[in-house]
């Protein structure tokens, strides 16, 4: 099939000034992790610390790019410890990267699912992606928020608004085509709430699509081991 040979998500574990992108998936063993501790670089998965559910909603400040089970650095950390806390101005955060061998047949979609089975998500069920009406808004949004740049190529400025726990819009949202982000973050909630690129990338042309994401927790999130997946849904010829 006329699919891409290389299509991957990359995270910046360099700096905002000098980005260094490393693959965080889909190759097995690579992944994104979150923690409320800034000192979790190079930690084997079996030793990854649990988080205490907070008394009030809060962003999970530290995001890590793991390229092997015990090999990982914080996003925008410069491969140094401690991991910097999340700030919106670190906008060279992550990107989808594809080669010149495939052709998109429509605009790609960025969302998240509970597992690779891509099952339906029940809005407001207290799960990480389902959200909870008390924490994430009357129309419960995912605790996982995403944003995306409006064109192919490196992002050139930061999103206007920082993510908040109630961000989200039912169905699809797209940034205005061009050098800008979504004004507000979208809840990444499977086939309920997602981001659609405002473009179909050029045929047989390598490119990158910059994305940004943030995770929140809240007092009504169901305690569990949450291991969802980011998904890039796309079509090809």
């Amino acid at each position, binding site marked *: *099939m*006329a*699919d891409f040979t290389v*299509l*991957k*998500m990359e995270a910046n574990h360099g700096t905002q000034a000098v980005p260094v992108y490393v693959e*965080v*998936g*889909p*190759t*097995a*063993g*690579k*992944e*994104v*992790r*979150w923690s409320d501790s800034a000192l979790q670089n190079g930690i*084997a*998965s*079996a030793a*990854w610390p649990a988080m205490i559910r907070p008394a009030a909603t809060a962003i999970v400040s530290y995001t890590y790019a*793991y390229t092997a*089970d015990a090999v990982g650095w914080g996003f925008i950390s410069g491969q140094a410890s401690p991991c910097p806390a999340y700030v919106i101005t670190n906008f060279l955060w992550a990107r989808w990267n594809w080669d010149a*061998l*495939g*052709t*998109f*047949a*429509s*605009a790609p*979609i960025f969302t*998240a*699912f509970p597992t*690779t089975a891509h099952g339906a998500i029940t809005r407001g069920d207290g799960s990480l992606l389902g959200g909870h009406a008390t924490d994430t808004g009357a129309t419960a949004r995912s605790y*996982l928020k995403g944003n995306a740049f409006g064109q192919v190529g490196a992002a050139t400025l930061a999103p206007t608004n920082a993510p908040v726990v109630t961000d989200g819009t039912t169905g*699809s949202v797209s940034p205005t085509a061009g050098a800008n982000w979504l004004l507000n973050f979208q809840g990444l909630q499977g*086939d309920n709430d*997602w981001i*659609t690129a405002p473009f*179909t990338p050029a*045929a*047989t042309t390598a490119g990158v699509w910059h994305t940004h994401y943030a995770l929140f927790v809240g007092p009504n999130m169901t305690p569990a*081991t*949450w*291991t*969802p*997946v*980011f*998904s*890039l*849904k*796309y*079509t*090809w*010829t």
Partner: protein
Amino acid sequence: MNPLIAAMIKRSGRSWWQCRYSDGKVLSEWETLTDKVKLPLGSGKTSRWEEVPKKGMVGLRLLCPNGMAGELEAPEGFRFFQLKAGGMDVGIGFTGGVSSVRRFCDAHIIGVVEDADGNCLCRAWETQEQQLIEFRDNIYNMKYRNIGPLSLEVQQLKV
């Protein structure tokens, strides 16, 4: 169909497109592969639908690994399209990498545009369900699997 080709399609485990032209010529997806061996074997290397001549195309088939085939017909006029819908997953969490993260193909779709409003008739081979389905949709906002608008340029559609 040649029984050997039919057996290869079944063994490949995937669906293949085949188009028909007004002059009687038939072009099969495996003939457009970049592999040296141009037969419906395995997943097949890149074939470029966007480079397939659309002029004179009057029929498009989907040959499925269960032996079924779906065919769409229309007068000449750049009305046919073909695409695969799928994606890729990236693990989140402290699992040492979700073992089953992958790239995947959910469906192989063929379609024909029926009017200037973009309404279309489609057939799709759904890879998980292993079934051939038929549905109506619209190329300006495909509801099927939330695909959204198709790229008319890529498909060379003239509506």
